[in-house]
């Protein structure tokens, strides 16, 4: 493949691991390789690294270290939050109602729907506005005494919109209901402070912020009713069994530290390019629309829909032309269906199949964006011509 000549504009899907992160991880593969649960000094070295990492994450999100649970990925964090809290709340106070938004990542929505289908919970979807944003008043209207958990995504992966988590959290807290937010996208770019956000559970995944794939965090506020879903050894406050993945945990902490300590600097760089992309695409391509909120959105994230465009073909042609992008309806098997998120925005099929997401990263250069914006209008019109009349 010619990946060295292709420009990566899909940093919302994943990011390259920062070299400083790689270096922090390396000793834990084959030098300090002990099992953190062991008594001996090999184990102690690994345990130090583990607890240092836990402290770093806790410091940045404003929690105590024992509220941090390391998991294998953002999806596992979402699963633990929903399953763990739903089952515990039902046992402890008979709460079996789950309130989520229609713009959740599948790790939340599919999990909630399985809890409904197999385990007798009732799932209710909050309405969203045209930008895919949840109105806190709707949460207040729909939350019930028997609501086991509310889950609203911090920043949506497909359309970039940021939800008013703090306001939603206030409502949940006043009603004694636990709020979870999936911040797998958000934490790469936004400050994530558990008290500012008024949340009880937050999911994070390292690979969105220049850490390695296969490692995540669930923050669980002290006192939250929750059961483990992966049982075995007593690791992670009995909430997540399994030998600690020390090198990856070290990598996650290092990457999170880098992301959270200079997110303002990263943000400034992104904002100008993002808005250039948004303005220029909407100006230069007929029948194009922005998806998600124009300003309340991730700083590195621009997403669009184009009328009468096959989103898959668009992505393939962009790839062949040297630009790696993504789409809400992307499907590598060539069987396009509009995504749940775009469907929740009430878009007609002729619009919803033509989605495109452009997401920027630390290595993105201005001239790459200029080149991309010069190429895109032509490719969109070529894709439109390929649809037989």
């Amino acid at each position: 493949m010619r990946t060295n000549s292709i420009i990566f504009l899909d940093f919302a899907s994943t990011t390259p691991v920062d070299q400083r992160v790689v270096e922090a991880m390396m000793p834990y593969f084959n030098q300090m390789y002990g099992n953190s649960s062991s008594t001996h000094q090999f184990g102690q070295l690994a345990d130090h690294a583990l607890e240092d990492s836990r402290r770093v994450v806790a410091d940045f999100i404003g929690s105590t270290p024992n509220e941090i649970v390391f998991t294998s990925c953002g999806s596992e964090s979402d699963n633990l939050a929903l399953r763990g809290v739903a089952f515990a709340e039902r046992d402890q106070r008979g709460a079996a109602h789950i309130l989520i938004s229609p713009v959740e990542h599948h790790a939340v929505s599919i999990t909630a729907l399985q809890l409904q289908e197999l385990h007798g919970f009732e799932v209710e979807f909050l309405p969203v506005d045209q930008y895919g944003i949840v109105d806190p008043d709707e949460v207040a209207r729909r939350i019930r005494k028997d609501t086991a958990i509310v889950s609203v995504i911090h920043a949506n992966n497909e359309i970039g919109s940021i939800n008013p988590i703090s306001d939603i959290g206030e409502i949940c807290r006043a009603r004694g209901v636990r709020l979870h937010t999936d911040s797998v996208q958000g934490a790469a770019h936004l400050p994530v402070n558990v008290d500012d956000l008024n949340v009880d559970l937050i999911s994070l995944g390292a690979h969105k912020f220049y850490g390695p794939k296969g490692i995540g965090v669930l923050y669980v506020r002290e006192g939250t009713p929750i059961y483990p879903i992966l049982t075995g050894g007593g690791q992670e406050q009995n909430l997540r069994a399994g030998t600690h993945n020390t090198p990856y945990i070290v990598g996650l902490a290092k990457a999170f530290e880098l992301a959270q300590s200079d997110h303002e600097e990263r943000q400034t760089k992104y904002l100008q390019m993002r808005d250039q992309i948004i303005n220029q695409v909407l100006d230069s391509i007929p029948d194009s629309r922005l998806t998600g909120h124009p300003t309340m959105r991730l700083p590195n994230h621009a997403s669009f829909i184009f009328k009468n465009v096959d989103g898959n073909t668009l992505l393939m042609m962009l790839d062949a032309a040297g630009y790696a992008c993504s789409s809400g309806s992307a499907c590598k098997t060539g069987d396009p269906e509009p995504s749940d998120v775009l469907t929740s925005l009430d878009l007609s099929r002729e619009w919803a199949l033509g989605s495109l997401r452009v997401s920027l990263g630390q290595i993105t250069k201005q001239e790459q964006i200029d080149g991309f914006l010069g190429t895109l209008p032509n490719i969109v019109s070529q894709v439109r011509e390929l649809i037989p009349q």
Partner: protein
Amino acid sequence: MSGGVDSSVAAALLVEQGYEVIGMMLRLWSEPGTASVNRCCSPEAMAQARRVSAQLGIPFYAVDAQDVFYNQVVEHFIDDYTQGVTPNPCLRCNRHIRWEFLLNHAIAFGADFMATGHYARLRHEGSRIHLLKAVDKDKDQSYVLHVLNQEKLGKAIFPLGAYTKKEVREIASDINLPVADRPESQDLCFIGDGDYRQFLERNSTLGVGGGPILNHSGETLGTHSGLENFTIGQRRGLGISSPIPMYVLEKDSSTNTLIVGEQELLGRDTLFAENVNWVSIESPKEALPAKVKIRYKSSEETASVIPVDAETVKVQFDSKINGITPGQAAVFYQDEICLGGGIIYASE
């Protein structure tokens, strides 16, 4: 790419020859509401094509062609059966899907040529390109490629035309391509269980049902269940009792009549073909001596191809032949060269 040995080796040969290769696969239609998947693009086939592409170090894309395949191939398949003819959907697929829809995509992706794993060859003769039979006569697929034209031949590469199937298998094994042998023919790829009669029952709204069975002199011998259930030359399952074996001679959709007769009446020495396409040569003005195939796997028969108008020919065989079937293609050859062909609509 289909994930099978032919297209995989074709891609490998092109990579070896120094081409910059992009793997493409068509996502074709399959019947909604059934568990079936299109056999040309099953998940296994797609995974296989992806693995081959990864091994060859080429990008791979699956192109959605479900709607266009339905409109151009499946709908016509249903209509043709309803009108009493026996269609060959692979011909329409090659003409409208592979060598038009997919070729347009390939060109839009920046490609200069489109290659397939078909067994056929091309030869430049002055300003014209001739479509030739493959070296491997058992595998030759020029029959289905007769629907191309000079412009498309100019964009086509058939890397396998000079190889035998045996050699292609050996290449695959030599370079350790992860290809499994799959059934050769994917005919009726969109009918998961291969049962086209059931498929037509579910999908044909125009079906007129049963009608009379007549013999050649117009005497009624019985009734049939629907013309689509019968094919020219068929003997079994007619449901009539006769002291001598009777064969389907004709399907007359205008009167919904099945005409049957003795074996010797099956033989015909003339056929008429429409939608004629001359792939290698200019449209002839006068009769051409040719060898003619009336089905993909039929033998070649000596005949004279006589132009009637720009898109219609009469084919006069030297001797009577059996099994001339409306809806199938008659394809004309001179030695190695595939001249062109058309769709059979009548015989006498």
